[in-house]
């Protein structure tokens, strides 16, 4: 019997590992068709190890969602410990009384193994409850599993359950069949309490039957495990292998904040003199880096990203999860073409089926107005793999990246696809062209031009020092901060109020500052987020030259987007400055007693975290400290706050595009803010203020918001507390 079981076990193992291995080899080759990653990504071993410890071993991101997080933690560690039982099972195949050296015979070892096995089963029960409770059938689009492969997910749960019980049952039969091990009794099974249950159950069957049962159950448990392994390599459950390299090679500290420059073949593209063959963003699936392809393969379809996505939550055809699944499906469908041997002309030398040829021809991003395009529970359909509106619905808010437990870099992939669309195809929502033209010709998105850039300061009762106005060639030494007013602060009527409030507060605190005035131009953020890297580079280089010539060192900004670009992206073009957001600086000045908020502001407020301040740049506390310092002000947090803040709808250059699909993002957020019964809704970014003001105005028109509700920057509320006489009554 020993021989039979060995041979059978061996055959099963060889066949299944062969199948799994072949599949993994295929996936590896497919991954290799991607572009090289940018330099430096794979070289920081220390960071990779820390990430593995925190995210894989510690399950850091998963645990943010307590119940499913703990359940996943249990399954993960359950499986880790179960690996020992698997080793024991394979050992028993060769040598019936096998045990792991040294610890293998200690009763507590058996106890721990069984404990984790039982934890696994408990976790499975939790998953079953979650999957039933949150089923798309009940919740529709609101379900995070909407659009995921539901059948395979259930099958995975079922198989994990089978792996656990067959292993325990096998151990139970072993206890009955096996009396003596190589070093005496197999004492470890004494501690294996769950296996003992099975032993009790099988005991009445007698020694002989238990011996047969042991073999049968051993083969069964190995069969289950091996079939599961093969299945995993063909399913979304691949994450159990792929998340390890995916986390190791993720962008650190996170794929948020600044965007990466355009790389082609691992080298930065020089937009002044690009190479003829340089890739400008991603126009074909194989233009993604191998890390991109790895991302698509690693997605577990958990839907955490989808549950937070402002586009998805307002009925738009974009879910970051479905996007990842779509790109994976397209990569797999295009694999026969990609992996075919190519002749001199780059055409495959082997014959491809018509379907394969069609997929090879299929554009990555579909055309505008594609009637066949749809994004629903069946995934994304259309002429292109990614429908046009799917690509352009993204606000680059980063909620998906923040949530993803396996560190997928959605925003980078979306921007890379936009880059190709804009730079190579000039295909983008038409209305955004006005903004691009304005940036190019007037240096600001509204097309007002440099000459209008000092209008904001005119009503102030002190003089704002303007660089160069008195013939300065460099910023004088007594100037502590260069105040980057930003296009909105300089040109938008509402944002001007913030710009003035910040200037007044700095003036009050005795902080010497200077502005660039006409010499300031748009940082290029909307161009970059739209994928127009060329225009971004032009604006960035122009601004960096201005700043470097002026000798700027410390910069204070009021716009979250300017902040992000100046702090995180200008270093890419040779601009290295210490950049602070006005809320950080003001909080410091309040703490130092240089600004005294002494007047009561009797009002209820809530604070909206701008994506580019909060999630992208981790500034959560400074604005809250400011609000807390204002006497009389009562702050109520919204449900979706800080890392989980819900976008206002303006990011990713969406500010300059029509929003005519689904419901409006700003209204969704406004309603949540209004739910806290505020007198004033605060934020710390001019674009958020615009979006929320529009939202509040609309609700006021509809009569669902009180006429008195205002929207204002945190700095303006602070000013009310410092110098109430300086605050104009806002017109709503």
């Amino acid at each position, binding site marked *: 019997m020993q021989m039979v079981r060995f041979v059978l076990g061996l055959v099963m193992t060889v066949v299944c590992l062969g199948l799994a291995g072949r599949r993994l080899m295929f996936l590896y080759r497919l991954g290799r068709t991607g572009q090289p990653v940018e330099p430096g990504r794979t070289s920081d071993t220390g960071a990779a190890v820390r990430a593995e410890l925190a995210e894989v071993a510690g399950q850091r991101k998963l645990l943010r969602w307590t119940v499913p997080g703990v359940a996943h933690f249990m399954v993960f560690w359950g499986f880790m410990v179960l690996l020992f039982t698997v080793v024991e099972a394979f050992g028993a195949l060769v040598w019936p009384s096998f045990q792991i050296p040294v610890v293998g015979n200690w009763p507590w070892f058996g106890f721990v193994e069984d404990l984790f096995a039982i934890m696994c089963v408990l976790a499975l029960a939790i998953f079953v409850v979650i999957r039933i409770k949150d089923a798309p059938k009940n919740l529709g689009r609101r379900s995070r599993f909407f659009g995921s492969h539901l059948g395979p997910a259930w099958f995975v749960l079922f198989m994990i359950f089978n792996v656990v019980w067959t292993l325990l049952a096998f151990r139970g039969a072993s206890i009955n069949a096996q009396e003596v091990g190589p070093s005496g009794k197999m004492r470890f099974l004494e501690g294996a309490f769950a296996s003992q249950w099975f032993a009790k159950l099988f005991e009445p069957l007698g020694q002989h039957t238990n011996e047969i049962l042991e073999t049968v159950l051993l083969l069964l448990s190995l069969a289950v495990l091996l079939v599961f392994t093969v299945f995993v390599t063909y399913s979304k459950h691949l994450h159990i292998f792929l998340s390890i390299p995916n986390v190791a090679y993720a962008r650190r500290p996170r794929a948020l904040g600044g965007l990466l420059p355009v790389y082609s073949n691992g080298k930065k593209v020089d937009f002044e003199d690009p190479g003829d063959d340089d890739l400008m963003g991603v126009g074909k699936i194989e233009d993604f880096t191998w890390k991109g392809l790895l991302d698509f393969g690693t997605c577990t379809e958990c839907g955490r990203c989808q549950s937070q996505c402002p586009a998805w939550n307002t009925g738009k055809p974009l879910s970051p999860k479905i996007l990842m699944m779509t790109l994976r499906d397209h990569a797999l469908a295009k694999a026969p073409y990609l992996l075919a041997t190519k002749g001199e002309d780059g055409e495959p030398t082997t014959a491809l089926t018509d379907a394969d040829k069609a997929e090879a021809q299929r554009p990555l991003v579909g055309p505008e107005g594609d009637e066949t395009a749809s994004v629903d529970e069946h995934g994304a359909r259309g002429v292109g793999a990614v429908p046009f509106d799917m690509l352009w619905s993204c606000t680059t808010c980063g909620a998906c990246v923040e949530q993803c437990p396996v560190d997928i870099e959605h925003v980078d992939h979306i921007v890379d696809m936009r880059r190709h669309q804009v*730079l190579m195809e*000039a295909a*983008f929502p038409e209305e955004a062209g006005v903004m*691009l033209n304005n940036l190019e*010709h*007037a240096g600001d998105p509204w097309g007002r031009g440099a000459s*209008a850039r000092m209008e904001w300061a005119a009503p102030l009762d002190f003089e704002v020092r303007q660089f160069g106005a008195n013939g300065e060639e460099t910023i004088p030494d007594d100037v502590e901060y260069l105040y980057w007013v930003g296009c909105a602060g300089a040109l938008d009527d509402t944002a001007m109020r913030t710009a003035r409030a910040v200037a007044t507060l700095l003036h009050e605190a005795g902080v010497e500052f200077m502005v660039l005035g*006409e010499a300031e131009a748009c940082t290029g953020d909307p161009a970059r987020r739209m994928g127009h890297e060329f225009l971004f580079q032009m604006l960035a280089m122009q601004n960096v030259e201005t700043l470097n010539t002026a000798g700027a060192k410390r910069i204070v900004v009021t716009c979250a987007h300017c902040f992000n670009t100046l702090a995180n992206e200008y270093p890419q073009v040779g601009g290295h400055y210490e950049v602070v957001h006005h809320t950080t600086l003001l909080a410091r000045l309040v703490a130092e007693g240089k600004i005294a908020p002494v007047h009561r502001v009797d009002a209820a407020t809530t604070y909206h975290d701008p994506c580019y301040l909060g999630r992208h740049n981790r500034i959560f506390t400074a604005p809250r400290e400011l609000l807390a310092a204002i006497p009389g002000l009562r702050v109520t947090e919204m449900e979706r706050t800080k890392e989980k803040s819900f976008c206002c709808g303006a990011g990713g250059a969406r500010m300059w595009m029509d929003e005519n699909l689904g419901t409006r993002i700003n209204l969704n957020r406004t309603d949540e803010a209004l739910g806290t019964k505020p007198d004033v809704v605060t934020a710390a970014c001019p674009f958020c203020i615009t979006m929320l003001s529009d939202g509040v105005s609309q609700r006021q028109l509809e009569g669902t918001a009180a006429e008195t509700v205002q929207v204002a920057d945190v700095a303006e509320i602070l000013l009310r507390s410092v110098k109430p006489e300086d605050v104009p009554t806002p017109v709503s």
Partner: protein
Amino acid sequence: MKIVVLVKYVPEPTATWKFAPDLTLDRGAVEGRLSELDEYAVEQAARLQEAGTASEVVFLTVGPAKAVDGLRKALAIGGDSAVHVTDAAMHGSDALATSLVLAKALEKTGFDLVLTGMASTDAEMSVVPSMVADRLGINQATFAGALSVEGGTVSIKRDSEGAVLEVSTALPAIVSITDTNPEARYPAFKAIMASKKKPVTTYSLADLGVDASSVGLAAAAVKVTSVTPTPARTAGTIVPDEGEGGAQLAEFLSSRGFV
């Protein structure tokens, strides 16, 4: 059919314009661009070429050295090549001189159809197309809201008050294109790079056989005697409606002579 598009490189309308001591615009002190209104003509030419109606499209400008940027912009939208007439003696030229030089350059390039904008965005005289037509002795059809070419005839639709005029004329002809035509496409970076490889020929006045004394500030028929900046935008008047709003509004309008 060969199309030549006349394009003007104008000072950026949103920038602050400065004037030189001789009261001409200080072109060096202000960014320039391809006149937005000429982009409509460029787009039309590109479309005629894509449709196979035009076999060759050339862009022509008379302007300072930097005007070549305007030609590059046009070439990113479409067309095959460009001609740039530049000469220090052109400084301060008026519409008469500009049209003379354009006519001479057109004689040199040859053409079947000349397309122009409806007006420049700086001087906005809308006279150059007619002047060029007159100098060349060819037909003109101005302010085309739409255009089509069939055989040797160009037909345009011109929106005038209450009616749409359809005008047809035999080639060679000159047609000015209005801003009711489709907007120029946004050129892809790829097209911008490709435009850098398209040939641009530069001519001086001597190359065209134009006598330098017939152009420039000294030869201009109209003299600029002074330049005053327009007053800055003021805040305007807000009429709050407290029952009297309508009356106040009417009063305001009548006080300014609007009603």
